[in-house]
């Protein structure tokens, strides 16, 4: 296979419905009105020379290579900025045009180093290509003023900037503006002195506002902005399209390879989730896949105080099977359980839950969605009838009012965050409900119309106050409610929210948000046109997480903001395959497609297909498993791709639960923190090493393709299958596509899904069934899945977690752009340069009270535990609120979080912990103990050494 760059049509596609027919070089071509002449030519297969134009960016018209002649018009207009007109007759190749293009190219080359043969972009350089295309042979200009020999900026860990090679096409600047929306780049100076600058003259890329999304590098037509990996490895030779394994946006990439080496990840322009964009994680932070910390051989040990011993796969499987059987025989089958991973593929997840249900013989299976979006599943299923968001990402383009609550898209879902910012810059209005002043509240060109800095833990109160305004001021969409919802339930709900005790004024002391702000925001959301709600873990990770989701659904229904583009209720999923893991039946109470395990007809279907009988009772959720373990009745667990010790709340409790088990099987890339308590370690494979599918936050199922062989020898589904076979199950899948066929066979909403179709159609959004053969970008269009929309009264119930004299501050936790979740991947990449430790954000007033300054070490203590970290004094957080991330095991923010959880789903209350902050000199006791234990439990006796 030879390397082909992605097709570039020069200017963005027009979305017009009408078409225009014109003639280009003697051939008729029909394109949407509003297309450029350049795009029309490209669609016809005629490549007009160009340098400043690329279809990711609006036309600019600066390079002057794409000139054409149009009959009846003077001169030689640029084809990128000239829109098509009916009957236009265009000539793209005439002697006159060739002469002019050559003349322009001669100017370019007169200020460009002549080092193509040693240039990193040799063979992958548009300037080189175009110089050839216009037939430039010599440069006649005398040696003159030039930009050669300028210093390179190598400050960014992933790419270099060499201004000597810059042709000042502004593609990087425009990509930063138009695609990413950060506007970190500019042209400095003017005329011949124009120079690309990252921020101020004294800034370099690393020190600038650049978020390292790489859009500029992708846009650069020369080697001016070039990945260090391209310099190191060489230009790619082939490309494989696959899906990113970081967040729930589900970006698709071309993994561009040279031999077996991954050179770069280039966002795939056809990808409907990301439309050719990426963030610093997806594009650059894949080095963990080759990191030396990866464990490639299975390991076992009899007890956790022993060192690990490398073994062959057979031995590991035999040992695991014997332990599981022993424990089942000794303690009963309910002493076993498993955890599926939202990082793994649908197929792998499906197999793990199948192993638990069919192999372990119980329903003790759960997934990490438990600790993030389980309330979404519960809340949206209850109100709408489906456990998923209602829209596709494109929908935001039609939103007039965007309400973001408990989400920080620019950091946690950056590619969608950029889409949202694009829409906001087009004029959509914005409401942000968040305890922190996130970048959505205010960052260049983005300013929320309303920021409601809600006190952590009072989301339900503020949403009810919004509903109060909508109902009492007559802003509800009565027609929608009458037609689409259960009216009795609506009236019940409306009477409740209309109570005085739910008014913004009454609730002001509870939420800490001024009543007039709440009223303004409610009016805007209800009357501002298409209103779309986007939310994240700031909604779900509360003791009333499920109520909050339902309160959001109530608001959307009350205002008629459901069932069309531009509106809806949109959970921003944390992990790449949270949606998929939930879809695949990872929860203990339901089988794939959200069908309750108690439903006999559903069970029958699976029992027939799998040839087993299923337990009709729900199994244990993760926290219940840990409780049962400390009770001594839960003894063995198979954990695929999740580090519960670091990610789950109340670390001490998690540790105690794990320590109480007799067989902990960790299946992961690295010896993670949980593995400190494991007896069997099964090496995992990265997303680059396997086939399968991920399902993103918009229910979009996309293929993950193997771009390289698994370093450990086996894809994760194969490992699970080996374990199943060792336990005596007769599984014989030869490819993940067969697993998907089984999923489709057993799951109505996946009926039309197959790898073959996904390969041909790039993606499908479930449900894909007889009623929606091509999938469902928008849900509940004609009616709710459950029939009538259900209004649920959500009374505000304060969390039991209370501040008091001992713990006067409220801690809330979240993510940062450059790191991901527990950091297992990102900490093993150069992303560390941006965030190499978790810090505690604290308001200046609280900091001053405690004598704390930025950079000081502080002790962060709750009733659950204490840790130390450094402080960052900032008014991004309100007084009384502190904030940190949980990316670093050295900090372990979850030592501090409690085991309080959502009433309906047990999703932990990560977002509200009463804490105290005090100056500190060193690590907490826990940290010291943990460090010692962590070192001890990571000892490995290598197989060769052992013999």
């Amino acid at each position, binding site marked *: 296979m030879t390397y082909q760059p992605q097709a570039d049509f020069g200017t963005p596609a027009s979305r017009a419905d009408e078409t225009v027919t014109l003639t280009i070089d003697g051939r008729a071509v029909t394109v949407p009105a509003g297309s450029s002449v350049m795009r029309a030519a490209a669609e016809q297969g005629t490549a007009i020379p160009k340098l400043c134009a690329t279809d990711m960016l609006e036309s600019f018209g600066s390079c002057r290579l794409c000139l054409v002649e149009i009959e009846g018009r003077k001169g030689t207009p640029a084809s990128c900025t000239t829109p098509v007109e009916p009957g236009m007759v265009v000539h793209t190749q005439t002697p006159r045009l060739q002469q002019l293009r050559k003349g322009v190219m001669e100017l370019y080359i007169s200020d460009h180093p002549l080092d193509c043969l040693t240039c990193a972009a040799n063979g992958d350089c548009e300037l080189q290509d175009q110089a050839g295309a216009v037939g430039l042979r010599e440069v006649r200009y005398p040696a003159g003023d030039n930009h050669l020999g300028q210093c390179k900026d190598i400050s960014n860990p992933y790419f270099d900037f060499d201004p000597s090679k810059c042709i000042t096409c502004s593609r990087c600047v425009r990509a930063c503006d138009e695609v990413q929306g*950060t*506007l*970190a*780049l*500019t*042209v*400095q*100076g*003017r005329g011949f002195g124009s120079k690309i*600058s*990252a*921020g*101020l*003259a*004294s*800034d370099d890329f690393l020190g*600038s*506002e650049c978020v390292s999304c790489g859009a500029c590098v992708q846009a650069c037509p020369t080697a001016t902005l070039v990945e260090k990996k391209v310099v190191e490895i060489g230009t790619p030779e082939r490309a494989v399209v696959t899906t990113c394994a970081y967040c729930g946006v589900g970006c698709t990439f071309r993994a561009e390879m040279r031999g077996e080496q991954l050179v770069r990840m280039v966002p795939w322009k056809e990808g409907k989730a990301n439309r050719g964009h990426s963030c610093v994680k997806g594009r650059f932070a894949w080095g963990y896949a080759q990191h030396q910390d990866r464990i490639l051989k299975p390991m076992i040990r009899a007890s956790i105080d022993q060192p690990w011993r490398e073994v062959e796969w057979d031995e590991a499987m035999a040992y695991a099977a014997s332990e599981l059987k022993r424990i089942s025989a000794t303690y009963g089958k309910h002493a076993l359980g498993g955890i599926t991973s939202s990082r793994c593929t649908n197929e792998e997840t499906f197999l793990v839950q199948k192993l638990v249900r069919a192999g372990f013989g119980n329903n003790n299976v759960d997934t990490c969605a438990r600790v993030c979006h389980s309330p979404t599943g519960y809340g949206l299923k209850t109100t709408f009838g489906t456990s998923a968001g209602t829209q596709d990402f494109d929908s935001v383009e039609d939103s007039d009012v965007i309400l973001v609550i408990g989400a920080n898209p620019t950091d946690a879902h950056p590619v969608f965050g950029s889409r949202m910012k694009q829409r906001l810059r087009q004029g959509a209005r914005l409401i942000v409900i968040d305890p922190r002043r996130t970048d959505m509240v*205010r*960052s*260049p*060109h*983005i*300013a929320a119309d309303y920021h409601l800095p809600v006190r952590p833990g009072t989301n339900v109160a503020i949403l009810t106050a919004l509903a109060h305004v909508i109902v009492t001021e007559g802003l509800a969409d009565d027609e929608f409610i009458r037609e689409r919802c259960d009216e009795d339930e609506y009236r019940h709900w409306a009477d409740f929210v209309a109570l005085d005790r739910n008014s913004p004024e009454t609730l002001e002391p509870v939420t800490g948000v001024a009543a007039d702000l709440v009223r303004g925001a409610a009016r805007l959301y209800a009357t501002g046109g298409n209103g779309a709600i986007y939310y994240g873990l700031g909604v779900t990770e509360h003791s009333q997480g499920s109520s909050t989701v339902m309160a959001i659904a109530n608001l959307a229904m009350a205002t008629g903001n459901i069932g069309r583009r531009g509106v809806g209720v949109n959970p921003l999923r944390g992990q790449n395959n949270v949606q998929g893991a939930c879809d695949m039946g990872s929860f203990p109470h339901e089988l794939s497609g959200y069908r309750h395990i108690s439903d006999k007809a559903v069970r029958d279907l699976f029992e027939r297909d799998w040839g087993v009988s299923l337990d009709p009772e729900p199994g244990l959720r993760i926290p219940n498993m840990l409780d049962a373990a400390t009770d001594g009745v839960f003894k063995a667990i198979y954990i695929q791709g999740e580090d519960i010790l670091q990610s789950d709340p109340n670390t001490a409790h998690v540790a105690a639960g794990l320590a109480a088990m007799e067989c902990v099987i960790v299946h992961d890339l690295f010896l993670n923190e949980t593995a400190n308590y494991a007896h069997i370690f099964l090496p995992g494979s990265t997303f680059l090493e396997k086939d399968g599918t991920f399902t993103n936050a918009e229910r979009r199922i996309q293929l993950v393709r193997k771009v390289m062989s698994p370093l450990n020898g086996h894809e994760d589904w194969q490992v699970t299958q080996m374990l199943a076979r060792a336990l005596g199950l007769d599984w014989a899948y030869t490819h993940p596509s067969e697993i998907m066929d089984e999923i489709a066979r057993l799951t109505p909403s996946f009926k039309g899904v197959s790898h073959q179709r996904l390969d041909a159609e790039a993606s499908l959004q479930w449900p894909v069934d007889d009623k929606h053969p091509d999938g469902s970008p928008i849900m509940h269009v004609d009616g709710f899945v459950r029939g009538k929309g259900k209004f649920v009264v959500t009374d505000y119930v304060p969390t039991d977690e209370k501040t008091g004299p001992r713990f006067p501050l409220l801690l809330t936790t979240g993510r940062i752009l450059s790191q991901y979740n527990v950091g297992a991947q990102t900490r093993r990449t150069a992303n560390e340069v941006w965030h190499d430790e978790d810090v505690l954000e604290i308001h200046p007033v609280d900091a001053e009270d405690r004598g704390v300054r930025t950079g000081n070490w502080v002790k962060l203590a709750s009733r659950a535990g204490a840790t130390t970290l450094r402080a960052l004094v900032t008014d991004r957080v309100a007084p009384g609120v502190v904030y940190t991330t949980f990316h670093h095991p050295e900090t372990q923010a979850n030592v501090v979080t409690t085991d309080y959880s959502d009433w309906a789903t047990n999703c932990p209350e990560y977002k509200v912990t009463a804490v105290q902050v005090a100056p500190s000199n060193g690590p907490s006791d826990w940290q010291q103990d943990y460090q010692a234990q962590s070192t001890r439990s990571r000892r490995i006796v290598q197989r060769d050494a052992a013999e």
Partner: protein
Amino acid sequence: MGISIDSFYSQPMKTIDDIIKSHLGSDGPLLPILHEVQAVFGCVDEETVRQIAHGLNLSRAEVHGVVSFYHDFKATRDPRPVVKLCRAEACQSRGQAALESVAEAASGVKVETVYCLGLCAVGPAAMLGEEVHGRLTPARFAELLEAAR
């Protein structure tokens, strides 16, 4: 005339934030702000760029791009008085070249090039502050530079 650019802009003791705030009501206020900052502080330095970017909710790259585009805005303060000498065609045709040796010899005064002051029938012309001078001869130009110091 009682109204001049200098008197309009120079309101002493104004801070950068005062200047930004006083322009927030208008659309596209960046150039007026930069003019006022330049007039009051003699330059638009990097710290000021950061402040303006923050105040207007722009990226600092954007503000830097604008500041560096326009010759009226200086990154650093030069305390010398500035004499803008027209070096455009109309003044050339009227013997402007004869002033060059005087300009080169200038000390304590910064001679900047300007292309046209709109005094094209009475050139060669120059401007000190907002005081315009036409029909310059080398001797008169030397006097002007001397007086400006």
